[in-house]
């Protein structure tokens, strides 16, 4: 089989114009990590089940391991590296820190991005709604209790910020 050609991909990541060259088969998660050196996005299962690779794609949480980078040409992407404001942690990050919402940290980027999208859709969730939303991301360390507490606390902090 002949080699497939590489193509240019231009996109906005964390508010910055970026570009790279890759094969059509390059997964968006690998493009972010290998071409753009944004290694905060983690690659776990590579079939959309674990959620560690979740990013905001044009404002909505999506799995970057089951998208091709070429598909993201022209897209606006936010990774975990883009959610803090300078050195000030995002309220979600602060709440994960405060409530010990992570242990090994592998799932954390996916948890944060998933929770960020979820809280925009549902700013005043119940605990059970948070649990349902977080079922999109697998954590094998924490047992989820502190992650749920962190998201509930962050929701409150973000509502106060909005008020």
């Amino acid at each position, binding site marked *: *089989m002949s*080699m*497939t050609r590489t*193509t240019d991909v231009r996109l906005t990541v964390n508010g910055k114009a970026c570009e790279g060259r890759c*094969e*059509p*088969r390059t*997964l968006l998660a*690998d493009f972010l990590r290998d071409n753009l050196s944004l290694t905060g996005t983690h690659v776990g299962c*590579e*079939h*959309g089940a674990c*959620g560690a690779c*979740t990013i905001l*794609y044009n404002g*909505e*949480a*999506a*799995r970057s*391991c*089951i*998208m*091709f980078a*070429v*598909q993201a040409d022209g897209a606006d992407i936010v990774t975990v590296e883009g959610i803090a404001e300078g050195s000030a942690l995002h309220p979600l990050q602060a709440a994960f820190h405060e409530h010990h919402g992570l242990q090994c940290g592998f799932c954390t980027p996916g948890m944060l991005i*998933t929770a960020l*999208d*979820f809280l925009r*859709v549902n700013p005043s969730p119940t605990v059970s709604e948070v649990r*349902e*939303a977080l*079922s*999109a991301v697998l954590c094998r360390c924490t047992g989820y209790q502190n992650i749920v507490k962190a998201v509930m606390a962050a929701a409150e902090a973000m509502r106060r910020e909005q008020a």
Partner: protein
Amino acid sequence: MKPASFAYHAPSTVDEALALLLANGPDSRVLAGGQSLIPMMNFRLAAPPVIIDLNRIPDLAYIRDQGDAVCIGAMTRQRAIEFSAIVADKLPVLRAAIKLVGHLPTRSRGTIGGSIAHADPAAELPMVLQALDGAVVVRGPKGERSIAASELFKDAMTTSIAPDEILVEVRLPVMPAGAGFAVEEFARRHGDFAIAAVTVVILRDGEGCASARIATAGISSRSERLRAAEQVLERHGLGEGAIARAAEAAAAMVEPLSDRQASAAYRRQLTQVLTERAVRRAAAA
């Protein structure tokens, strides 16, 4: 793992996509939301030499209220359906089911047309298409044709859509005012594929039942309507005895799958339990 190499095409119209499909024949696969196909490619369970990506065809994403039916473009994201006022108003059973399709981050990408054309036996959207007696519109070299839900699903991952055709629209008849409905799903975790699921849509007529539709997912090799169980309700109404008999009829008529998640006997039992629960809930609504 990583996918095998492929040639990538991103046409901007359906006609262009059809021409690419015709030119590349069986080597090509049409890519919709990619939430099933790309995992299969990552595992190299699929290695299509040519990918025709529909994501750059804006004309395929819409939700239109046509009066007696809601027409949904094949590339409409499941997330758009979840938050659509038209769907909430006219097709509440679709809204209830869509929340069971994966998770919010997969619904951001996953499409209604992709899920239906993929025809995973455990997927919820084929079940809803069956329960609403909807249809899909496919376009091919000879033009468009409509395929009724009852004619669409042939077997696991197999539909009556021809290899040179593309699913372009899903048509769902508007639910009559006052229709009762319920989606009952049994899965290991929220967002997982159903081990068994049953969707019921009924129209009451006093104590009787003017019409009943009962459709499955995850139970057998394809989503199917359980007509014998529907007929029990239509003939005998919605009393406790009739509901129990309908559930028994449902369990008797399915040919359940047996796999590492559940035996055939277990799925048959689930069919009865879920049918009973769903009918009871739909009748109470």
